[in-house]
């Protein structure tokens, strides 16, 4: 690391902000330039659906004001769209022709929504049909929010995590919403049919109609036509059919990409170790999870690497959580594509489906739908790779027993008043609460045993209390 390394970061999203924070925390002494194509400051992208739902105000999303960058000597350029990376010249070229030289380059370009093959989505001039929305950026969110007051009905195309969040948000906002999912169940990338079926029932109960196994094929003035012949009348179409890593820059620069830009343990391109990628645009060990925590772990590893540390990235344990009122879903890892012993409990009557994939006693993946009472513990055990006993996965999936409390059944030697050290037997020997107070001092300390003492006296002789 030279003292004045020029580090250029393309992208000003959650991975990029985190990288900057980690670099600042580690005292990185190079010169950092951040190029963000959106006009405003970096914000918390994953809360956009909460903004849409109305549970979060827009202004609370901002992660770092421009002043923060300036205060730490970081050159932040917003509204700066990168046209090209010239690796031979080691320069980044912006659409306005500005060229920015780098010693190291970090691509944190995120992901872009996939446009499903629906005729009529895109008009002849290349713009989206006015009723059609994507949902990735703050601008998308604001545009959709602007359309909501006039909209009576909406169709969300895509029954994945984002699609369900958007569908719930629109529904909470009072828009009659329907979901179209091409595969045969909801959340098919994360959960099995039973999990999907529970969610489908939940959504219907929340008055959102769901069409699975059907594809939208054409948008017309009459509505959105599905391949099963239905036409859904609608004012809004929200495309939430997934996204893909934004790799156009990397590909054009000759950096090896599969789904994302392929990186090694220091998040460096396998083609050029002066170029790194973090976040949604990076692919490590065949995976591009598209979630924030892995992006942040990558940012920390890269910052450590850039400041002379020896941290390495070995992949992340992921937990995907649905953020939508009334739908409880947590997906640990990739439960449908991970080898291991499967322990599962499905209760369609209570609308719950829970499943753990266990290998060598360690939870390697899991699904929790409809009952998140144990989610905190299960994710801890998963994240920490705790080796469980053979009965534990099953116990984790069963509901906790409610604490039983019947003081009148206490044996005589059971302690009732911890403050004064009084047993049930000594209370039973008292004629009244007053006698218990004066002779045993029970109830006179913290007072917590008062009801138990009353119960004991009452059970022996109801007239005594």
């Amino acid at each position, binding site marked *: 690391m030279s003292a004045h390394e020029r580090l250029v970061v393309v992208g000003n999203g959650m991975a990029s902000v985190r990288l900057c924070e980690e670099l600042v925390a580690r005292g990185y002494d190079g010169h950092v330039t951040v190029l963000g194509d959106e006009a405003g400051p970096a914000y918390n992208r994953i809360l956009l659906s*909460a903004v849409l739902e109305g549970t979060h105000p827009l202004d609370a999303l901002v992660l770092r004001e421009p002043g923060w960058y300036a205060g730490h000597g970081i050159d932040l350029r917003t509204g700066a769209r990168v046209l090209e990376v010239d690796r031979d010249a080691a320069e980044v070229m912006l659409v306005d022709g500005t060229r920015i030289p780098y010693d190291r380059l970090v691509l944190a370009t995120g992901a872009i929504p996939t446009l499903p093959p629906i005729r009529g989505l895109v008009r002849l001039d290349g713009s989206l049909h006015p009723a059609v929305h994507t949902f990735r950026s703050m601008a998308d969110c604001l545009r959709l929010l602007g359309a909501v007051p006039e909209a009576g009905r909406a169709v969300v195309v895509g029954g994945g995590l984002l699609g369900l969040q958007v569908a719930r948000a629109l529904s909470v906002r009072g828009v009659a919403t329907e979901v179209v999912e091409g595969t045969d169940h909801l959340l098919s990338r994360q959960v099995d049919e039973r999990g999907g079926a529970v969610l489908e029932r939940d959504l219907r109960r929340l008055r959102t109609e769901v069409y699975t196994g059907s594809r939208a094929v054409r948008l017309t003035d009459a509505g959105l036509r599905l391949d099963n012949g239905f036409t859904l009348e609608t004012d809004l179409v929200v495309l939430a059919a997934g996204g893909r890593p934004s790799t156009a820059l990397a590909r054009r620069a000759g950096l090896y990409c599969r789904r994302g830009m392929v990186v090694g343990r220091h998040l460096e391109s396998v083609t050029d170790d002066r170029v790194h990628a973090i976040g949604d645009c990076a692919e490590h060990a065949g995976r591009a999870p598209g979630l924030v925590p892995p992006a942040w772990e990558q940012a920390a590893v890269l910052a450590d690497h850039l400041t002379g540390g020896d941290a390495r990235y070995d992949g992340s344990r992921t937990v995907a959580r649905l953020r939508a009122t009334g739908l409880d879903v947590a997906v640990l890892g990739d439960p449908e594509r991970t080898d291991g012993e499967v322990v599962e409990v499905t209760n369609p009557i209570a609308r719950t489906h829970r499943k753990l994939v266990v290998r060598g006693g360690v939870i390697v993946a899991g699904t929790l739908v409809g009952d998140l009472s144990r989610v905190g513990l299960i994710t801890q055990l998963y994240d920490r790779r705790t*080796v469980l006993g053979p009965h534990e996965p099953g116990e984790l999936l069963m509901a906790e027993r409610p604490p039983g409390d019947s003081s009148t059944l206490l044996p005589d030697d059971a302690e009732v008043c*911890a*403050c004064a050290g009084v047993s049930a037997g000594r209370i039973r020997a008292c004629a009244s609460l007053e006698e218990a107070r004066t002779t045993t*001092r029970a109830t006179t300390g913290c*007072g917590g045993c008062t009801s138990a003492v009353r119960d004991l006296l009452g059970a022996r002789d109801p007239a005594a209390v």
Partner: protein
Amino acid sequence: MTATETHCPYCSLQCGMRLEGARTPEVVAWEEFPVNRGGLCRKGWTAAGLLRHRERLTRPLVRDPATGELAPATWDAALDLVAGRLAALRAEHGPDTVGVFGGGGLTNEKAYQLGKLARAALGTSQIDYNGRWCMSSAASAGTRAFGLDRGLPFPLADLERTDVLVLVGSNLAETMPPAARHLDALRERGGRVVVVDPRRTPTADRADVFVQPVPGTDLALALGLLHLVVAAGVVDEEYVATRTSGFDDVKRSVAAWWPERVERVTGVPVPELRALARLLVDAERVMVLTARGAEQHATGSDTVLAWINLALALGQPGTPYAGYGCLTGQGNGQGGREHGQKADQLPGYRMIDDPAARAHVAAVWGVDPDTLPGRGRSAYELLDALGTDSGPRALLVFGSNIVVSAPNARHVSERLDALDLLVVADVVLSETAARADVVLPVTQWAEETGTMTNLEGRVLLRQRATRAPEGVRSDLDVIAGLAERVGSPVPFATDPEEVFAELGRASAGGKADYAGIDYSRIRAEHGVFWPCPSPDHPGTQRMFLDGFAHPDGRARFHVVEHRGPAEQPCADYPVHLTTGRVLGQYQSGAQTRRLRDLPDSGPFVEMHPMLARRLGTADGEPVTVATRRGAMTAAARVVGTIRPDTVFVPFHWVGANRLTNDALDPASRMPEFKVCAAVVRPA
């Protein structure tokens, strides 16, 4: 029959009690005293049992170099020996070769004299005390946020008049049982109680809302709650604008703490988090109280600041029946930190590196300010340095049982053994006294008079009710005797009332100002709340109502980030270990373990049935808990009330602190007693 109004020898509640009968005093209720209204826990009821205890030390003990055994000696011989050895060491190595270690159970008078002994007589900077391991994180946070640290800035009874009371890491139903009555009274009034604890304690059983985070994640929980408060748009903007500073940065910093992230870090499910946030948002008055569970971490002071940020955003501190407070632990945890036992402070909460403060205190003492030493090492750092090239070679210990109560206790015991001279003043032969070269038998509680400042900042008078056993001297006598023998340039009073008056002068004009308090006022008024700068001042029950103690009157928000415990579970040490107290015992147990009327079944290892089954053990079976620092064996106590990924060991017995981590909080120097990584196996 004679009855003396006095206070319990144990926790920071300092319950009022009467002692009847001078020869064999008996505890009876003092109904009029407002803090506990006659209520006591079993520790209080049985406290008199130690007064005539057969294990009481009544003669100084000196270790015989020939046999290595402690043997009785006269007071003159013992004190002359100590003074002679100190003089020799100081001549060879300089004044900082003598360390002084105090305690949060000492009266204000003793704490004050101990600081004066160190600074004015011995000239050493090396003084600190076990209160560093008690509430120092809250003290540090309170000082930074409000400009002043008083455990509760309001009377305890105010708890009953708030709307939502949040207890973070406090098990007051077991650690200070009479205080729990306020929870019931609050709930009867329609208020709500929230308890945050990795264990569902008896306190949690009395709460309306209980959340059970992973040990060491209370900070993230607070960040998540503030995130939701911001999201709900209910930040008290006017309060924030007029009474605080620094909110914008804090607001930005919590944008990244959305509920699902908090869930993953804390293990608190999102629905519980949202329900708790809703409760806070809907309440008019919110009171947040932290205790050791939140504070005894390497991130303890930041954790407290995070909860203070939440209280400030809700517009609570410095308004009636609301705000933030710390439930101090030790009997004089409050007063003990105000009058000069701390490595960085002089009496009255004056900072030792403030020239004006030095001049004031030096004038009261009658010494040249330039002779006063500067800042010393914090408690654990002091112990860690003992017997090393740069550290003290002699240590004087008053009111602390270090061998049981220090973190990483095996290492600390080795440091104590590396000293040239260890002197311990105590009531009984504690585990620490047993390792000493000289043991000095001192008076206890009902045998002496002195003031204590309870968790409310209420200065109380513990009055002598009985005579000390023959041969025992008060700590004030011992300090004065040592001061004289080491050639102190200034006199040391031995009469507590006289010492208190001097303390009042030394504290005058300081933040913890006692100048207007005297013994007769305390008797007449059931205690006086500091600050009380003059005899006609009524004392200050409620602080900050007109402004905070920073020069601009504003409270400060502080940006804090979750870092997590210094030691995380791993393949070799897969569970969290946390430590704490049980109702029947107090601190290192030096007092309570000797009382037959208190239950003492020894330490135990509390664990969830799921973990017990994984380990192949059962309730009552012996298990060994090991950490990177040590191991202990005790019976398993299998309960459904603890997190399945966590075990709990009480610290009143030798063992628990062999396990605990000595990672320190950067601001408060608090060790991380409350969480480390451990492995448990059947023994």
